[in-house]
């Protein structure tokens, strides 16, 4: 009797758990919102660490701060560089970029934005951080009230690109000097579409529309960023209507949400690109380019995209996402061809394959297991080691990781230079493939500001990447969001949560 009762009870609990998924669509919770005020609640998995946009370098921070601050340059809907605080810019010589500025911009506290602001902001950025995008800036010269020259130590072809995010954030000189750094980090004042209201750490940041915004008042009156560290909980909150946009979804979560009536899954192009890094520096099969080419031929990448990733990714030929400058669309990805792969392995002297270790973050388990299974088909036995992401990264940095590892890269400057810089040249931090020709081409594309010369060098590098195959090239993921049906918002390819263009139906 006692036993039977407890079994029934357990079953009941399990049943309620299972059914709740299906019954959710009907009873949406009424939102207790003032109908006149348009409030948009956006959730991300981690909170900002500071409200000082120049004393940080992480996306969760930037996602919030990009709504309070403006940058010199921005991106338009076609991902081209577009005016923001700067109206136009040009390279007046190899090491000088000149920016013309808007003359009608004020900070939220009324302070005027001008050339002095730019000088102060860039100097402050470089004094707070030794390692940022603009560390190569030698000096900033005020030409007149609304013109500045940014002088770099060596030619920097993508300086304007770098001012789209962290590097180009403009901060109020007078406010910071008068109110102090600490106060600024708690009560930020920017020029952006939203003004700072309050910050409850690890819980929420509240912003309100800036009625005097120079690009026009945003449609949203109140913008709230909630921190929800657990994706399952974030999705639940989207279903109940507590939040309007859930960000940073993984493909498995997005697949589960397909067909849910209350929310729509939005998949947007994103420039985060993934690959298997192959350590070519040690003797053994991986030092042979035929083996590496064989690995590229052996993995049915489109199938993994369609199944494991639910179609939420796009094939790439090398390390560069299709939107970035420098990508050469004539360079085609490796064909899936098992016969050719086996042939190449035999040529290299490994007709029966070999054994190899692969390191990956535990969150990418399904993906790397699928890749391992594909490689197994040509006899390459892959032992997958899963670990938390931080351990993976520190092993890679310390060069103690396995000869294969799964990694991604976001080149948010949208120039191939960012996709290559840590990998391709022999002296770079993540380099595990030494090639003299690639080194020379890297110098050309990094030290020239002429787009045509750069493109030629970048094409050369991509040809080498196909020929030498020092990576298994995979895909660029889609940015995945769950949005309530009454929200209209276009995510951008950089993946930063700029909410100025959002509106509620």
């Amino acid at each position, binding site marked *: 009797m006692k036993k039977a009762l407890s079994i029934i009870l357990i079953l009941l609990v399990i049943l309620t758990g299972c059914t709740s998924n299906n019954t959710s669509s009907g009873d949406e*919770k009424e939102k207790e919102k003032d109908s006149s005020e348009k409030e948009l609640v956006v959730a991300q998995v981690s909170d900002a660490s500071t409200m000082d946009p120049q004393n940080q370098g992480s996306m969760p921070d930037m996602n919030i701060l990009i709504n309070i601050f403006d940058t010199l340059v921005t991106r338009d809907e076609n991902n081209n560089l577009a005016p923001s605080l700067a109206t136009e810019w040009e390279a007046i010589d190899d090491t000088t970029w000149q920016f013309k500025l808007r003359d009608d911009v004020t900070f939220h506290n009324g302070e005027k934005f001008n050339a002095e602001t730019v000088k102060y902001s860039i100097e402050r950025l470089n004094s707070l951080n030794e390692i940022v995008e603009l560390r190569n800036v030698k000096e900033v010269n005020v030409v007149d009230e609304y013109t500045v020259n940014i002088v770099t130590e060596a030619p920097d072809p993508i300086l304007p690109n770098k001012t789209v995010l962290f590097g180009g954030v403009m901060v109020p000189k007078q406010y910071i000097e008068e109110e102090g750094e600490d106060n600024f980090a708690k009560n930020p004042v920017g020029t952006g579409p939203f003004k700072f209201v309050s910050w409850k750490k690890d819980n929420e940041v509240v912003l309100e529309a800036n009625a005097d915004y120079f690009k026009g008042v945003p449609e949203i009156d109140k913008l709230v960023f909630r921190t929800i560290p657990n994706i399952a909980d974030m999705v639940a909150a989207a279903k*109940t209507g507590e939040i309007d946009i859930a960000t940073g979804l993984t493909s498995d979560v997005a697949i589960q949400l397909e067909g849910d009536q209350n929310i729509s899954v939005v998949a947007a192009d994103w420039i985060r690109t993934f690959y298997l890094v192959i350590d070519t520096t040690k003797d053994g099969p991986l030092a042979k380019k035929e083996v590496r080419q064989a690995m590229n031929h052996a993995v049915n990448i489109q199938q993994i995209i369609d199944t494991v990733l639910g179609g939420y990714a796009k094939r790439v030929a090398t390390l560069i996402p299709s939107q970035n400058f420098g990508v050469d669309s004539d360079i085609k990805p490796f064909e899936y061809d098992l016969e050719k792969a086996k042939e190449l392995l035999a040529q290299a002297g490994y007709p029966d394959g070999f054994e190899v270790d692969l390191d990956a973050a535990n969150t990418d388990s399904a993906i790397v297991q699928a890749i391992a299974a594909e490689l197994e088909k040509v006899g390459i036995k892959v032992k997958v080691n899963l670990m938390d992401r931080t351990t993976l990264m*520190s092993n890679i940095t310390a060069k103690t990781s396995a000869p294969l590892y799964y990694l991604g*890269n976001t080149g948010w400057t949208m120039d191939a230079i960012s996709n290559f810089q840590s990998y391709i040249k022999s002296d*770079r*931090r993540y380099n595990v493939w030494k090639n003299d020709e690639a080194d020379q081409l890297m110098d050309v594309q990094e030290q020239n500001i002429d787009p045509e010369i750069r493109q030629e060098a970048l094409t050369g590098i991509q040809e080498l990447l196909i020929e030498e195959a020092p990576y298994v090239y995979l895909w660029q993921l889609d940015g995945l969001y769950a949005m309530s049906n009454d929200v209209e918002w276009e995510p951008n390819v950089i993946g930063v949560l700029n909410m100025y263009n959002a509106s509620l139906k």
Partner: protein
Amino acid sequence: MKSLLSYILRRCLYAIFVLFGVATVVFFITRMTGDPVAIMLPPDATVEQMEELRIELGMDKPLLTQYGIFIWDLLHFDLGESLRYDDSTLKLILERLPATLQLASTSLIIALLVSIPAGILSALKQGSLFDRLIMSFVLIGQSFPVFWVGILLILFFSVSLGLLPTGGIGGWEHLILPAFALGLHMMALITRLLRSSLIEVLSSDYIRTARAKGLLSFKVIAKHALRNSLLPVVTIVGLQVGALLGGSVVTEMVFAWPGVGQMIIQAINFRDFPLVQTAIILLAGIFVLINLIVDLLYVVIDPRIQYK
């Protein structure tokens, strides 16, 4: 009274050793998990820049020297600065501690409010349908992990019924689900413990004598039986507070509760060693303190116990 005071002093001395041990363990364990410098810098940082940062953070020194500096600072009540927030670790934790304490204490209160009546009634009506129901719930409560219960509660009460928020901090309605999820295990444990303890006491000779004297049944239970069966309960509550603080780490992650637990997880992910250290030392301190209070409560409950 004087002996009690010296007992407390002695316990405080022990507490210092316990905290010293905790600090040592947490120091070496965090150092074994990897290199924070690797993730603090952007991917294009050079080897020299990494070395520079390592020197700046004092991580270039031998581990034992670092440990010596850490203990020396600790003796001066300097708990260090967070790597991620560039701020005093103590301040960062104290900002979030109220939320954790609010959650843990609400859990404790809910657990006691449910388990004490349930345990008593269960013991009195031993073998009845009510007793069996309660014991089945106890089984469930003790065997289901908090993160799973948490997700089920969210799915049922928030997503399906739309009664309560899915997470975050706010009014009392935000507190119900996480506090219940966190307290469930303790609730079950205390119910079972109180039930068996009370059943044992009820069958002892002095209760029978009290009943034979014709005392009211209620009075016998409340005054004679309950008091004696509470002793093990108090012990367990003291120990379970540790479990509540530990469980809050998981619960806060599930319910997006902005407390110390959530911060510890993020600090671990970021390899923010100073922040992890301070948080663990502080939580251990709270645990030690609560256990001291529990030991002192024994005196009140059981006059036979005396501290010398």
